[in-house]
């Protein structure tokens, strides 16, 4: 009575992928035959489920259960769960440049990061200092991975994150970091597509990362050891000496700029001491900057002189810069009596700027010190102009990546700008 049903599934390859054609047997059934056909189908499923697993899509019967913890399906490459950060296997350098694209696009706003800064200059570098993702609120949309221009953030295949520790689902950079080789393993074709451009970009970014910044935390020790070993083997090429000459020049230039700034601040113009000895030139420039600012305030200017006298050359330059900074600040903070400002600056137990400036003093070569001092002056002046009170707090331990003369020049420019601003503000407030 049962109709013989030849349930055949044929597989055909078309241009748009595989097509499965299922023969459903007879469709016209007489009274009761439908019931029996149904029983037959169910029995076939029962019988086959006892003997085999469902392996191909063209198979209609067989157990399709995957006994999850023991058996796992192979995840497709495009499977995405939570994002991870990649770092280079050899150099340990992270691909992330802290460009904030992922943070901006993340719909639930679960990505947070801090950009790394060069401790010497305080300037941001293309690396990330800390990176947090709240996995518990991440919705696995994958937008972060899609938007990342450096292919630094990718979607992971790991999905077993069940925990009773809620906070444990906020992962920091160290927990997020995976070597590229890991990603290559889970998504080989995807990585192959972007590999070249990503590595090229990484090479470029590595050049702008001083010291160990940008190295994955778990790799820091290894890389440091590697570098130490490399340094011990290769004879050190003494990179500091050839830069000495340009540094002097730079100091002079800085002084010139400072002078210009001074003029802009409508101080009494003084001839530029071009003929002065190199160290002195830097010092002088700073002093002038300070003076200019001070004059704008109409305060005592004689204090600068003793300070310069007592200090050794390079130190003096630094000090002068500090003074310049302080003076500029004071200038901005209207109404404050500027008389004691110079003394303030020279005493170590003083307000923040002085304290900040003190540490880097000792072991530095002259030009470097000058540079630093100028930077500080600039910062302080800027801040003063902007807010009027807050001390510059960004000063960090000395950095070594940049050529000294360039830095010094830059610093001087900043000092000049700051002074100008201070003056402008002052003018405005007087009027």
């Amino acid at each position: 009575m049962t109709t013989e049903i030849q349930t055949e599934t044929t597989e055909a390859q078309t241009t748009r992928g595989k097509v499965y054609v299922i023969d459903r047997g007879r469709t016209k059934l007489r009274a009761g035959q439908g019931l029996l056909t149904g029983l037959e189908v169910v029995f076939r499923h029962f019988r086959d489920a006892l003997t085999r697993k469902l392996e191909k899509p063209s198979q209609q019967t067989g157990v399709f259960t995957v006994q999850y913890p023991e058996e796992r399906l192979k995840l497709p490459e495009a499977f995405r769960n939570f994002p991870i950060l990649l770092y280079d296997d050899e150099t340990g350098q992270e691909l992330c440049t802290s460009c904030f694209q992922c943070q901006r696009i993340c719909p639930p706003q679960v990505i947070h990061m801090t950009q790394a800064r060069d401790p010497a200059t305080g300037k941001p570098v293309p690396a990330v200092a800390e990176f947090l993702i709240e996995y518990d609120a991440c919705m696995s949309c994958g937008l972060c991975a899609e938007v990342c221009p450096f292919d630094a953030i990718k979607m992971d295949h790991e999905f077993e994150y069940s925990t009773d520790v809620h906070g444990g689902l906020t992962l920091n950079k160290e927990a997020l970091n995976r070597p590229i080789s890991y990603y290559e393993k889970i998504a080989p074709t995807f990585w192959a597509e972007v590999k070249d451009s990503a590595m090229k970009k990484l090479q470029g970014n590595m050049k702008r990362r001083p010291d160990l910044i940008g190295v994955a935390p778990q790799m820091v020790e290894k890389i440091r050891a590697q570098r130490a070993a490399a340094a011990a083997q290769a004879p050190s090429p003494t990179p500091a000496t050839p830069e000495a000459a340009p540094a002097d020049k730079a100091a002079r230039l800085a002084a010139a700029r400072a002078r210009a700034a001074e003029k802009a601040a409508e101080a009494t113009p003084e001839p530029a001491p071009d003929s002065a000895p190199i160290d002195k030139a830097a010092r002088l420039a700073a002093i002038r900057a300070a003076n200019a600012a001070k004059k704008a305030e109409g305060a005592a200017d004689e204090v600068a002189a003793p300070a310069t006298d007592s200090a050794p050359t390079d130190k003096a330059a630094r000090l002068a810069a500090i003074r310049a900074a302080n003076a500029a600040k004071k200038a901005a903070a209207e109404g404050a009596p500027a008389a004691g400002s110079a003394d303030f600056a020279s005493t170590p137990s003083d307000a923040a700027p002085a304290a900040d400036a003190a540490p880097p003093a000792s072991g530095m070569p002259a030009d470097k010190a000058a540079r630093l001092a100028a930077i500080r002056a600039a910062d302080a002046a800027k801040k003063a102009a902007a807010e009027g009170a807050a001390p510059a707090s960004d000063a960090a331990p000395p950095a070594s990546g940049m050529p000294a003369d360039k830095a010094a020049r830059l610093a001087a420019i900043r000092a000049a700008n700051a002074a100008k601003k201070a003056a402008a503000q002052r003018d405005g407030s007087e009027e």
Partner: protein
Amino acid sequence: MTDILRSWIGGALPDWLIVLIAYLLVTTIVLFYAVGNFIMMVWAERRVVARMQDRLGPNRVGPAGLLQPIADAVKMFTKEDIVPRNADRWVHLLAPIVALAPVAMMLAVIPWGRGWEPVDLNVALLYMVAVSAVSGVGLMMAGWGSNNKFALLGAMRAVAQLVSYEIPAVTALLTVVILAGGMSLLELPYMQAGVPIMGATILCGDPAGCSPLLYSTITSFPGSPNEPVQALDLGLGWWVFTPVGFLGFLVFFIAALAEGERTPFDIPEADSEIVAGYMTEYSGMKFATFYIAQYILNFALSALAATAFLGGWQGPGVAALANMGGPWVHVAAALSAFYLLAKIWILFFVMIWLRGAFPRLRVDQLMDFAWKLLLPLALVNIVSASLMVGLTQWTSAQWGGLISLDGFAPWQRQLIAVLVTAIINIAAAYWILAINQRPKQVEWDEEELIAAS
């Protein structure tokens, strides 16, 4: 059991105490047997239906998930027992008991093996039917006492279903009563000895040369109720192999599905429509009691169907072992108990199979099915059964000289009876199916209609 106990501790205890202990023991054994089967059925149902749906089913607790029912039981025991505030407290409490008790009572009269029957009741079939109807009261109590519209709806459906399906079920059982000439369940398996279709009608020509392994003494086979004969006995003379028994079995089994509330007749608890029907407001062990009642009812009905139509404990080898005498009788009893159990489980498998294959009927379809299909078939079957008895057993005096089959051998009479009833049953089945077909859709010719008007 009583005899065994008497022989062991006959002198030590008063006789009434021995009888009491014996029956308590038997009751305990039967209840444990049923509950053990219930546990296995729950497990098997889940596993089997899972395979039918290409899954694995519970396989974590214990080997192959065998301990899953135990885990479920623990869960049930630790569940909070909730009674709705406006429920009728006592009715709510008593309902599961009223539902389970009659079901448990049904087990008392089933012959579980050759010589293993708890009670020999000469109206066992009537008892079964009557007692199983009581559990409907329990369902109604549950629905009414819960003070819940879904529960009440479920109970109404349950009662309507039970009442309408009782009729085809009883009518189908009537066939058995006619064939057996009595209502005793104990006798039924003995009557279903012999070979398929022919029953115990192939007699031994030479009483000396017949091996006791193939032939056994049939005392109460339809051909000759009084004088014992030697007949070929393979233990396969089940009534289901005759047209009458086949139709009766079909009708009874379908009606049993409805009485046991199995899919496709699980309308009373249709979980996709009315939550869980009359069980909606039950939790914990009370819910489990309903659950047990339902499965044991299925178990008992399967046992009844097997006994009435599938030969009960009858099977190849049982008679031969029994004929060998001595300790082999006990082996025969064990084998026969196994046969019955196997039949029950095959029927239960069919129940699961149906559940895996068919969707739930609508209420109107349910009623149609019972009243328009099953009942007429069962009624026709009664006629067939009567003819069967008449053709195989009646003397020409009983026929009043209308038909005289006295000169034929039993197997010839049996063959005639089978052919006649087969023709009647097949014709009736065709006819009833045909008149149950939906009327043909009339194609109205619009033009003609307009012209006519």
